[in-house]
């Protein structure tokens, strides 16, 4: 197998320590793969690759200075600059060696099937970048077939750094352009029978003892985007009891289009009210969720997919943020006299 280089890092070679080079998404996929969790194979186009590309562009015409000269409130100027810089990134030639590296990695990833579908996703290198206000709108491309399409999607991810909201945000925060970089994950797509999200700490109540799974038919983007009301399952980590099984009417699913990209498609009548996961799959997902949580030592928000051969994959895992951020007072404190606890029941709860 092709080895990792400065430009390209395969998942197996990545640890979380590599985050500055491969970004959060890339880092966590690498970590998962190394921990033995089944993730769709892939590689990360490292920040170094972006910097090489940008250096080449800077030589022709400065980009960073253009951005730094913008006033945060000058939307007109920002819009103009954004349009121009994005066009440059999308059109300019890649340095030869970088292009060669990328094509070789893509070919290897597709295992000889050049039109094997891949996902191209930006992998931001800072916490801020996770925030929707900073990330570009066009930073995830699904079901990309063919090397040229993959390279175009890669450029679009890079270009999203120069979207209007991204530039405006950096100008407002006064962030130096020198620090701006992005990694991009390119990985095989799962032809998902069903997909969704899994929380190892309840999003509803913060309960640490249950795993919550939400899923629908087709690709996970339907659930992640909120377009479909998913089925919901709640499983106790310790006893394996499935205590909640709420099946929703799943009218729509995201399916790949024949020549790339995805589209909404109607779910056949007989599947709409059918659970998207079998009980064995729910339990299997729960086991994976528990082991990933153990691996990271903290609760995770996970994206998963089950392919057409019923194999389960994880597509992403990142730390749960909602409940971790909340002030966690103890439910109860030990009492000097243990009997005092009964006063909670007998003393009136009004």
């Amino acid at each position, binding site marked *: 197998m092709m080895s990792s280089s400065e430009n390209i890092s395969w998942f197996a070679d990545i640890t979380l320590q590599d985050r500055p080079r491969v970004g959060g998404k890339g880092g966590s996929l690498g970590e998962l793969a190394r921990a033995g969790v089944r993730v769709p194979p892939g590689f990360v186009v490292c920040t170094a690759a972006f910097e090489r590309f940008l250096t080449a562009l800077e030589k022709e015409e400065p980009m960073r200075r253009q951005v730094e000269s913008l006033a945060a409130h000058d939307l007109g100027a920002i819009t103009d600059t954004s349009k121009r810089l994005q066009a440059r990134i999308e059109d300019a030639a890649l340095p030869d060696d970088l292009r060669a590296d990328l094509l070789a990695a893509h070919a290897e990833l597709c295992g000889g099937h050049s039109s094997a579908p891949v996902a191209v996703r930006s992998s931001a290198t800072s916490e801020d970048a996770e925030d929707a206000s900073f990330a570009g709108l066009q930073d995830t491309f699904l079901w990309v077939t063919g090397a040229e399409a993959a390279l175009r999607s890669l450029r679009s991810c890079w270009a999203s750094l120069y979207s209007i909201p991204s530039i405006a945000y950096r100008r407002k925060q006064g962030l130096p352009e020198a620090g701006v970089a992005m990694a991009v994950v390119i990985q095989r797509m799962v032809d998902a029978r069903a997909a969704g999200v899994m929380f190892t700490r309840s999003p509803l109540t*913060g309960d640490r003892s249950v795993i919550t799974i939400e899923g629908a038919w087709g690709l996970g983007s339907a659930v992640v985007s909120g377009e479909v009301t998913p089925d919901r399952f709640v499983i106790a980590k310790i006893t394996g009891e499935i205590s909640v099984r709420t099946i929703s009417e799943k009218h729509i699913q995201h399916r790949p289009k024949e020549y790339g990209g995805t589209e909404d498609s109607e779910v056949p009548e007989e599947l709409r009210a059918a659970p998207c996961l079998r009980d064995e799959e729910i339990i299997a997902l729960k086991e994976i969720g528990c082991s990933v949580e153990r691996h990271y030592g903290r609760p995770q928000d996970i994206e998963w997919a089950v392919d057409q051969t019923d194999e389960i994959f994880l597509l992403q895992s990142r730390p749960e943020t909602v409940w971790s951020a909340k002030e966690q007072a103890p439910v109860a404190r030990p009492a000097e006299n243990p*009997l005092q606890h*009964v006063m909670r029941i*007998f*003393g009136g709860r009004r």
Partner: protein
Amino acid sequence: MSTSAKTKGFPLPSSLAVVAGTERAQAAYPYYMQFSKEDDERFWFYNTMHFPEPMCLFDTITAEACYCALGSANTRVYCLPTTLGIDSRIINGRYYIGGNAVTDPAEIARRITEFEKRAFYYYEHWEKFFGQWKEKMMGLIRETEALPKVELPDLEPIEHVYAARGIAENHYILETYQKTLEGYFRMWHYHFEFLLLGYGAYLTFFDFCKKAFPEITDQTVARMVAGIEADIFRPDDELRRLAKRAIELGVDGEFRQGGSPDEVIKSLEARGAAGRAWLEELAISRDPWFNINVGDGFYHYHRSWNDDLSMPFSALPGYIANLRAGQTLERQVHKLMAERTDLIAAYRELLGTDEDRAAYDQMIELAHRVFPYVEGHKFYCEHWYTNLFFNKIREFGGLLAKNGFFAAADDVFQLTHYEVEAALIDLMTSWSNGSPPRGPAYWPEIVKERKAAIAEWAKHPTPPALGPVPDIIDDPAIVMLWGITRESLDAWLAADNRALSNEIHGFAASRGVVEGIARVVRSVEEIDRLRKGDILVCPITNPTWSPVFQRIAAAVSDIGGSMSHAAIVAREFGMPAVVGTGTATQRIRDGQRIRVDGGRGVVTILE
């Protein structure tokens, strides 16, 4: 309890009519049990857990004595700060109860101080007082066993004259009757001496778990505390022991499905030393463990295994067959204990802070200390003592029947306990004055009328609750014992809207999914209709029917929480159970194919 301003609720008590033709029977219940107009202002629920069938006029003493003691413990003895006692009414033979609460903050504060002095003292001395309790209960049992036989001789035995006793035999009819009632009322005081405190300790732990793990299931919490070593399980343990002995002695062939106990015993006697040896084992088991009855302590016709050997004997062929097939019948106590310990440790690890862990340790320790009483007392109170009581009343019934008052001894149960005293005084008087008693011309018609009323009432379903719905239900007894919570009330109310749907919802008591034929069993007489693999659908869940559990594939009940014994037994047998459905016996028809999903608490009618 505070009541909400909602208009949606259950029917008002005043809207319930007495079933036509049963008015005189209804009127015979004591005046303090009849509904009145003021009762429309409060909430009542139909206690099908303990009183699933219409109540005979005598049997209402069970509820009277029970609630009298329960309320005293709450209101006056331990001074539960916010909870007083249970008020009750009866209509069409159906028992409705409502709880009384304390709402004045100053009064609550005063009661908190008293509660801490009184209840904490009991918790602190729990093991010692429980030990004393067992002695007190056994003392009461022996006292009642020692009551004189109920009979009236033709002439006063001359020895009494020579001994200058000075009191004629008829006086002892009255004295013995009053002592019989007194002992029964006293039993209930012993019953409640520890019970509410025990439930409270359990609820304290339960409440903590629900706050720390909002999505934890009730049955998981119950598994951490309940169901291991309690005397209530001994009778069934004895059956397993007897099955094993039968095989060891080589007499297991005498136990065939369908044979009556008398036939089996005769054939064992014909088997020489081996048969006699087994019968000796039976005698050992019977005293005291066959004092368990087939009910829950509230109906005179729930006889004990000692009174009627057909229940225990009907279980033996099945247990013997299982043993021969290589299954071990031992209750897996060690396994259950190990699982329980693991469960407790695993959840402890998930707690967020050291403080939570320390508090958790304190609460579960208390729950474990008190729970043996909560489960263990039933055998002595609702079973052994209750049998003694009802059998003694039968003796009075026998005397009255002998004297023409009734056609059969059991007819005595068609009279209230006040009326029985009147009948006895009538008899005593006639013994004294030489005129015939007046009862024979008076009671038979009334008995006939009341039996007809009971039969009529059994045909009419009754609402699960009456009156305006309260905002909060926080009496520990009500929450724990009857599985009544705000949520279950809402579910019952919603059930009206779902009457057309084929799904019935309740508490997930024991996991597993099973499909089968439903047998709607409303009384113990019908138990024999259950065939192997049937699904039991009943108003109450009842652990003393444990031999029945080896025949059924799943259990569904109208009322009960994850705390109920049948939930515990179902989990032990590894079969699905859904309890607290509110209306399963009304919505499921006998013979219908249903699916029980004990992990979700859903019963689906499949046809």
